[in-house]
């Protein structure tokens, strides 16, 4: 019945630049029409596995392979990237980076152009696949000017111009806000139904993918296949937590409450779990938990009053935004792409000047201060470390800001070393930055800002693209500098887990306006705010409501407190 499409038999692959094989004796078969999810921590080999499917391994990334990999019954050595491209479509992680066309239409046509399709036929086919993903009205637009969700649709339309047997998504949710991520999964589902192609999704945001049904989950760990089973079965085991992948939050909650969920519980979809069975346990757990103690009011460190901003004679990006930040707070700023989050941080740092309103730091107006002066009070860490690193060695990079300020060498050395110790980078002080991992690079950029001793740190998507282990590592580090060194932290983020777990308070922006300023648990359970800001109700809240817990918001809150305690140990 099931026809195999891809067969890995004792397949191993070692990159030429590495000493250890990245994939170790993989045995795996993908069947026609299946919908498969591949999960695994960073560096587990899941991306390499995907590159095997589209031919980048071994044709573009050189290395040695052993065993065999058959696609359509042909060995992969005989199938070039071009051969494969006619029936394997790949949608890469960052749609921005892969657009080549000036307009949406042209970008969708790219593969057709390369196949020498005549212009007239091409126009028809482009229109067809644009309609398939619902971007028919955007054909003349520039791909860069689209929203995150639209960009992904365009990228998808670009591979749908030829009939495909296999559709490969590399972390499709990575750059999307929660609600858009949801639509993306719906779209993928829809395309799967229409094309009947085999679907392979690589993603570590497991809970978000599972909002839609998948046939099989393959867990990759350390170059091997750690599990290969249906979602319901997999979630009843402890494989995921053991290798550092976050299971759905509702499931963790059930486990904390001692519910002992089994595979009969349909754990992959919250709405199918027979909760009557578990309600007693959940209630007991709920009442046994202490409410989180409310933080006392502290001194206000930063205050914004009625700030607006627009780029010359264009529409306002921010309008009349007012808020305050307390000393020592961890605050998150959320909202969809283009809601004004980055603009807000640029205004605070002085990169741009507000067209209206004031920003005060400890009661004093910041307007007369230069970017450089502000930087000694407020530091900004960009999302991509490569956009900040300008020296070859760790020490020099961190020292840059002090040297630019003419601080004597002695003091520079002392302050840099102290900062490196705080950031856990002291052992690497004489290392070339290029030899560090992504997480370590991120810490170098944080250190290079912290060395100036700012009292406020603004971070743009501090954990974007990180797996659970790195996420925890970065966030615990931030928590530590927040608590031990009293640095106030503002985080711009799409990640709802992050705001639930680490933010004391959340500012929600929508179309340039501040629509909420409240505790994360309150924000993530308020339907109106959730819709306006393109967020998503946390599954914890759904779980609480469905099991008729008396105060669902308190349930979410208590879960977060409890979970942090468990993970700290």
């Amino acid at each position: 019945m099931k026809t195999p499409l891809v067969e890995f038999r004792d397949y191993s692959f070692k990159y030429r630049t590495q000493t250890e094989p990245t994939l170790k004796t993989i045995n795996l078969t993908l069947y026609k029409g299946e919908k498969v999810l591949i999960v695994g921590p960073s560096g587990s080999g899941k991306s390499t596995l995907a590159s095997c499917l589209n031919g980048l391994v071994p044709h573009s990334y050189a290395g040695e392979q052993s065993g065999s990999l058959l696609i359509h019954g042909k060995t992969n050595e005989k199938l070039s990237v071009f051969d494969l491209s006619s029936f394997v479509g790949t949608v890469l992680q960052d749609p921005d980076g892969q657009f080549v066309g000036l307009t949406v239409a042209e970008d969708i046509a790219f593969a057709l152009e390369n196949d020498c399709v005549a212009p007239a036929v091409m126009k028809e086919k482009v229109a067809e696949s644009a309609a398939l993903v619902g971007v028919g009205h955007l054909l003349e637009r520039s791909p860069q000017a689209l929203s995150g969700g639209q960009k992904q649709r365009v990228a998808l339309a670009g591979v749908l111009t030829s009939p495909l047997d296999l559709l490969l998504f590399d972390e499709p949710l990575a750059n999307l806000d929660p609600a858009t991520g949801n639509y993306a999964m719906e779209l993928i589902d829809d395309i799967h139904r229409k094309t009947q192609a085999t679907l392979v999704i690589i993603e570590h945001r497991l809970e978000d993918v599972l909002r839609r049904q998948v046939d099989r989950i393959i867990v990759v760990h350390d170059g091997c296949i750690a599990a290969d089973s249906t979602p319901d079965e997999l979630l009843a085991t402890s494989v995921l937590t053991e290798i550092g992948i976050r299971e759905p939050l509702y499931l963790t909650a059930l486990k904390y409450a001692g519910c002992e969920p089994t595979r009969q519980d349909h754990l992959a979809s919250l709405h199918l779990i027979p909760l009557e069975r578990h309600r007693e346990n959940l209630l007991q757990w709920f009442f046994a938990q202490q409410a989180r103690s409310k933080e006392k009011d502290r001194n206000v460190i930063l205050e914004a009053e009625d700030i607006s901003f627009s780029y010359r004679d264009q529409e306002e990006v921010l309008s009349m935004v007012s808020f305050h930040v307390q000393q020592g707070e961890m605050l998150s700023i959320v909202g969809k792409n283009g809601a004004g989050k980055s603009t807000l941080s640029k205004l605070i740092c002085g990169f741009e000047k507000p067209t209206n309103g004031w920003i005060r730091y400890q009661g004093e107006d910041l307007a007369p201060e230069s970017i450089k002066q502000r930087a000694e009070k407020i530091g900004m860490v960009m999302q991509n470390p490569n956009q900040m690193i300008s020296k070859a060695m760790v020490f020099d990079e961190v020292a840059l800001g002090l040297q630019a300020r003419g601080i004597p060498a002695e003091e520079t050395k002392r302050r840099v070393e102290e900062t490196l110790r705080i950031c856990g980078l002291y052992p690497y002080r004489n290392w070339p930055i290029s030899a560090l991992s992504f997480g370590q690079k991120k810490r170098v950029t944080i250190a290079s800002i912290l060395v100036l001793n700012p009292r406020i740190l603004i971070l743009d998507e501090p954990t974007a693209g990180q797996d659970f282990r790195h996420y925890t590592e970065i966030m615990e580090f931030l928590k530590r500098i927040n608590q031990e060194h009293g640095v106030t932290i503002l985080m711009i983020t799409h990640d709802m887990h992050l705001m639930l777990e680490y933010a004391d308070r959340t500012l929600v922006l929508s179309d340039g306006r501040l629509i909420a300023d409240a505790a994360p648990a309150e924000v993530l359970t308020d339907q109106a705010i959730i819709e306006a800001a393109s967020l998503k109700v946390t599954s914890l809240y759904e779980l609480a409501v469905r099991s008729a817990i008396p105060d669902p918001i308190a349930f979410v809150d208590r879960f977060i407190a409890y979970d942090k305690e468990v993970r700290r140990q």
Partner: protein
Amino acid sequence: MAQMMTYSSKDTWIHRLSGSTKMIFFVAWSIVGMVTYDTRVLLFMLAFSSILFRISKTEYRQVATVLKVIGFFLTINLIAIFFFSPDQGVSVYGTRTELWHWFGPYTFTREQLFYEFNVMLKYLTVIPVALLFIVTTNPSEFAASLNKLGVKYSIGYSIAIALRYIPDVQKDFREIKQAQEARGIDMSKNAGLGKRIKGMTAIMFPLIFSSLERIDVVSHAMELRGFGKHKKRTWYSARPFEKSDILAILFLAAFTLISMLVTFADGSRFYNPFA
């Protein structure tokens, strides 16, 4: 934000011409501009290219920076010509009308001034057309037209992609600059030249690395979508030759012919008002 020196989509008949037409026009126009020293031809070309500039609705700020840079080098060039061969004009036009003796061999002559005036005109006739070509030609169409004229499409496409990434790189540049300024790298006018040059390296380093990252991603994306599969490819944005293209080419041919006739009527490239 206004983007400098990049294609901006507007609806004028210049924008609607096919990329190949514009390319041929640009090449022929530059050759004529380089060959002729005939003041009458040059003045006509200057007037005509200014009109084209107007018609294309190109705004000054789109090209301001480049114009300033070119203006700077043009001035240096004119001064250098005077210092290295102050009698060039005399030998070209065969007469010598002295205006003012400065020092040593340096005498201002009417002939020299007129000669340098012609050199300046040559620059001024070609530059607007070159700028016009860049800001009115869709980069992909540009690649398509290069391809039509016999250049390998991978080369044409690389150029097109480079043009297409200019705005992205400009955005990166701004963001990196802001981040580095915050760390204390002073790039404002208050800082000395040495400091600014040093500061520039602190921006270029990350800019180059993030650009390399970008190139890596896009080249794999292109490969996965079959770029380079065949010796040929087709173009979605290729414009068929239309009546206006044919008219433009006819005009160009007539212009080239007449300007050459006018220029060489007296057997020399130069128009000599002193004879």
